[in-house]
């Protein structure tokens, strides 16, 4: 089976990058690898019980008792299956990939919202990134960065970035026109308009994007186990290789539980606006001024 001219072009492009920027890729790879390793070691250093307490408390703060109980149960199940180390490893990869996706994706989204032409280019690029089968990213990632965590994180960044870019652009575009008018009429500079009006009002949408990005990163990290990402994905992969239903199911269950915990927790930040509103209402002062009759 041979690829046509189109495939050759992609191949040549990757080879060109590899041959001419090898040093650069190696350095970047080392740096990124160090960051991921540090993150993973850091998380692994926290004893299971401490992590359990922290996450349950966090769940209680963000969503309440029911969710806190669920988080506690989910972590115990994972621990019971003996998958805690793998889960921490996967979590570290997800956090690293998400962090870079946001650092790159949010500014791109803002740029797209402010410039129509940029948005058109971005949109086609994002469509491409999102619909290209996830496995395909693994090939150039391996060529450029070798096997292991680094190519896994790189491929994951590419795959998980589109939602946060799109939803950032959408969120900023959806800020009501009269708020922008109000901002301009009071003499805002463009950056004041962005930081004081557009971003705060686009926050729920951006947070939905962050949530989606995390979910996509998690799914990609599992796929990336094929190039040595380790973690839960590796466990699932070994289940496939050995046709062992038990191992496959346990690994899969670990992924599902982690996904639910991450999803609900990050989702709660998108609802932040509503929550804080409720807390303010409780301290509502009594109407003392007689002039207030509206």
């Amino acid at each position, binding site marked *: 089976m041979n690829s046509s001219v189109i495939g050759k072009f992609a191949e040549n492009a990757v080879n060109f990058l590899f041959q001419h920027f090898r040093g650069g890729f190696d350095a970047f790879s080392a740096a990124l690898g160090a960051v991921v390793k540090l993150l993973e070691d850091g998380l692994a250093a926290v004893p299971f019980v401490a992590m359990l307490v922290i996450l349950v408390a966090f769940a209680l703060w963000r969503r309440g008792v029911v969710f806190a109980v669920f988080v506690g149960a989910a972590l115990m199940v994972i621990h019971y299956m003996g998958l805690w180390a793998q889960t921490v490893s996967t979590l570290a990869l997800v956090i690293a990939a998400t962090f870079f996706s946001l650092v790159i994706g949010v500014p791109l989204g803002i740029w797209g919202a402010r410039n129509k032409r940029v948005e058109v280019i971005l949109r086609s690029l994002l469509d491409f990134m999102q619909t290209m089968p996830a496995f395909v990213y693994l090939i150039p990632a391996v060529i450029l960065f070798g096997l292991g965590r680094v190519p896994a994180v790189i491929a994951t960044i590419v795959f998980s970035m589109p939602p946060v870019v799109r939803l950032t652009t959408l969120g900023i575009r959806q800020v*009501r026109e*009269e*708020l922008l*008018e*109000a*901002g*301009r*009429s*009071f*003499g*805002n*500079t463009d950056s*004041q308009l962005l930081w*004081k*009006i557009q971003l*705060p*009002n686009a*926050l729920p949408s951006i947070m939905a994007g962050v949530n989606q990005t995390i979910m996509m990163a998690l799914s990609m990290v599992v796929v990336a186990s094929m190039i040595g990402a380790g973690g839960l994905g590796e466990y699932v992969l070994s289940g496939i290789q050995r046709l062992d239903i038990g191992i496959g199911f346990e690994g899969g269950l670990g992924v599902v539980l982690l996904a639910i915990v991450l999803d609900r927790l990050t989702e709660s930040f998108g609802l932040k*606006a509503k929550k804080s*509103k409720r807390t*303010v*209402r409780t*301290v*509502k*002062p*009594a*109407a*003392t*001024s007689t*002039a*207030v*009759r*509206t």
Partner: protein
Amino acid sequence: MTPNLTFAPEGVLHPGALQAEDVSAMAKPIAVSGTDILKVRNLSKIFGPKPERAVELIKQGLGRNEIFEQTGNMVAVNDVSLSVKAGEIFVVMGLSGSGKSTLVRLLNRLIEPTSGQVILEDRDIAPMSTLELREVRRKKMAMVFQSFALLPNRTVLDNIAYGLEVAGLKKADRYAVARSALTRVGLGSYEKLLPGELSGGMQQRVGLARALAVNPSVLLMDEAFSALDPLIRFEMQNELLRLQKEEQRTIVFISHDIEEAIKIGGRIGIMKDGCLIQVGTPAELIQSPADAYVRDFFRNVDVSRFLKASSLMTTVERGLISCDIGAPCERYLNQLIDSGVECGYVCDEAGRYQGCVTPASLHKSGTHPIREAFVRDVNAVPLDADLHQLATIALSQEHDVPVTDTMGKLAGVVSCRTILKQVMERRAA
């Protein structure tokens, strides 16, 4: 009947003249200092691909629709010139689509003018750089929006302090100013709430306070009360008039509601199809509308408040008695009977109105001084007395109502028949 447009200054009421109950509530600060703070000259805005072509077609005298058909350009504001005096509320009135909201946005360049000048305190805003314009927006002009346009994620206090924050004031300083603005609009205890937790009327008070906080030279209000329900709107109008009484501000107020316009407007400019077709005080517009479009605005409005004695009165020819009030009655009895009128109006030698007599009252008093023959309750009203005041006097007695000028001289009388006719006409409309 030719409308008389000379008015005595408002608020100078003669002793004895009745004042309608609602006048004090409606009274607006009229003592405008008179200098033009904001001048708009030949301001136009044309939306669309080739504004230059549209400008040519305007010069050829083509209408808005024809220009749109031929060029695809929309003439939103067409060659508007006006001047706003310091301390007055200038209302721009028009139906939707008449270009009034575009006009107000041209003033602070939320929309860029196609041509023309906007001169605020002797500086033309239209050609200013972004930097200069920003300074003007921060310090000289503030805007209140129909939809309030409050930032939903900020507290009431932070919303009000917004203009000052943008201008770079320190937190403590801007909060101090914002608190005082908040107190002025009567929402002192609500500073920690979010806008979403307030009613519409309260939100617009916050919007108003936000604009007042920057202490602008000109306040732009774009249909500021139109989104409120009628009772709240009424209250906000009174609130605005109250604030205006405390401290006179120059306000350009956009409205499509004629009652609102005549209530709060010192002067009103009427817009139609992007053109400013008439500017005047409410009374001027009611009494001499430029065309049917202007007249139609007032069709369903109770304009009795603006129908003044000066325009309804007729001069007294027969029945004018000029004498000292100490003169005996009998001397004037025959004169009055010969003139064939029901009553006579007695003026002193300087022409000042003294009282009203009838043949019967003169006959009865005989040799007594004429002042003893005065019919009770025939009180004079000033030139600017409105229909309501005239009707009140007419009800209390049966003679024509005398009208006096600021010197107390008899200027004319308004017959009860005229008053009745005007009242009937208002009701019919």
